[in-house]
């Protein structure tokens, strides 16, 4: 304690990871719930569970974003997954 700086990212990368976690994580958490609501026969239940599970998932995705080696990569992963899940949601809806 404190953390060893050799493992921490540089300011540019850090900004990318923070935004990826906050914005990308939010979009991904929402799109996963949207897809689940379309796939499962419990639309209302899934959406209402989202009242807490979206925020829990969002928190988890924020943490995962910091684990990535590259901020660009994690942004790309979150963005592509969000688009795929949203597209799938529209398809199965």
């Amino acid at each position, binding site marked *: 304690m404190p953390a060893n700086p050799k493992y921490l990212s540089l300011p540019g990368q850090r900004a990318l990871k923070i935004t990826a976690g906050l914005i990308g994580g939010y979009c991904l958490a*929402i799109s996963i719930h*949207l897809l689940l609501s379309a796939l499962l026969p419990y639309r209302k239940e899934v959406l*209402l569970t989202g009242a807490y599970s979206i*925020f829990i998932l969002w928190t988890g995705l924020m*943490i995962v974003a910091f684990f990535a080696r590259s901020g660009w990569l994690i942004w790309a992963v979150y963005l592509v997954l969000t688009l795929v899940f949203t597209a799938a949601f529209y398809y199965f809806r």
Partner: protein
Amino acid sequence: MKLKNLPPRLYNITFHTHTVSGIVISFALYVIFFAGAFTLFRKEFYPWENPAVRQPFVAEIDYDAVLRDLKEKNPMFDLSEDMTISAPSATHPLMSVSGHLIVKEGEEEQHYHTYYNPHSGELSSRMETTAGATLYRLHFFDQIPYIGRYLSGFVALFFAFAVVTGVMIHWQNILTKFNGFTLKGSRKVFWTNAHTVFGLLGLPFQFMYAITGVYYMLVLLVLLPIVVLVYDGDQAKAIADIVSQPQQAIELRKDAPIARNKIPLKDIIADLKKEYPEMKLNYMQLRHYDREDGTLLASLSDGHSFTGDGTITVQLKDGAVVHHLMPGEKTYAQSVLPGISKLHFATFGGLALKIVYFLLTLFTCFVIISGVLLWKEARNKQSYTPEQKRFHHRVTMVYLAICFGLFPAVAVLFCSELLVPLSEKHSFIVNTIFFVSWLVLTVIGLGARSEARLTSLYLFLGGVSSLAVPLVNGVKTGDWIWTALSKQSYYVAVTDIFWLLTGLICLVFGFQQVRRKKSKTADPEALQAAPVRI
């Protein structure tokens, strides 16, 4: 027993994010929890805050007569529109009516709200007192215009982040540290482990508050995409589907004739009480009150179990039950949002549960403060320049002054509530006194040289101002603790006893700390300069 640890890279990243997110939100989170702790008892101390309602609770109310009276005094009040009437209770002996005013076709609806005092029979459109409301609003930064709620929402989100990363850091030693916790041994060890152990003890509680708190403040962020994408922007449909209001599903005719004879509301309520003797009436919603097809929805709860509440809807003309959703009848979907509310507001286990919540809230405040102190102490070593150390010290002092200054300021808020005479400007003046005194108390604390001195200063300030609360109440209203007890105004008495005990405990701790410091004359900073190992 040791658990598997994170690999070094992930451990250090987690550690850093935990530190940064924690230190950024710390004082804001402390304010949320501290103000929230008092908000738990907002209803219970309401009779203390408003001497006008220190009166026995009237269970039997002729609701129809109150509405007739209301209509007479305010002819624009719309008896056909939806209205909500909250029933008086032992802690809140006023009855409140929220409804609408008559407006021309196509005009925007106008809300109307009033309180009825069952003893004096008076109707008054505004709550005169503010202490409970001020603390309630402070706990989601509602006093900061526009962004306050979002700010508190994101503080809650980062709190969830800090809780999870905290568990990840301590994962390896979580069992050994928890089982190894002891009150014996040196103070240093105690304080060092306390952050971890109290954090772990309060973990489910803190995580629950983080998530339910984010939900309340940032629910819009979740609702918006759902309404747009799932319901194609049809807000009404989304609300009808998700937040199903059983009573709203009952179709009412716009041209329904005026009711000629209907059953008095008090008879309907009396019947419900007979049928569900263990349940209390929380509130009722009236629709088309003065029409033939009017309905009454009664919200009932037993107040001491998690699923012990429900609603029942009856027709006003004949008392026939048209819909019921009583305990045991709710589906999962119908229980999620009320469940979140019960967890957040601690309304499912009576006063005992609220006391447990209160203690856990104070634990959380303790975890926040000890976290800030650890942050500083961990940086109190050779590898940091004196300038950096001064910065860490200054940040810690400012944070502590803001956090600890809130405690005497809350006592000042309670005192000024009774000292400032009731008038149009009462709330404004009391709020000004509260926020200015908080500011002044913060500035006073910044004069202290060390964290230890600052803490004892606030113990004294807090102790003295806490003792002032029962004194002010006794002098202004004549309800000294013993008179309140003999008058059976238990909520007033207990509020006073709480402040009395808090004041005494703070003063005892304050004197102890001063004495300890005097006996340790060699180095007054020894306490806070001691290196902290984790």
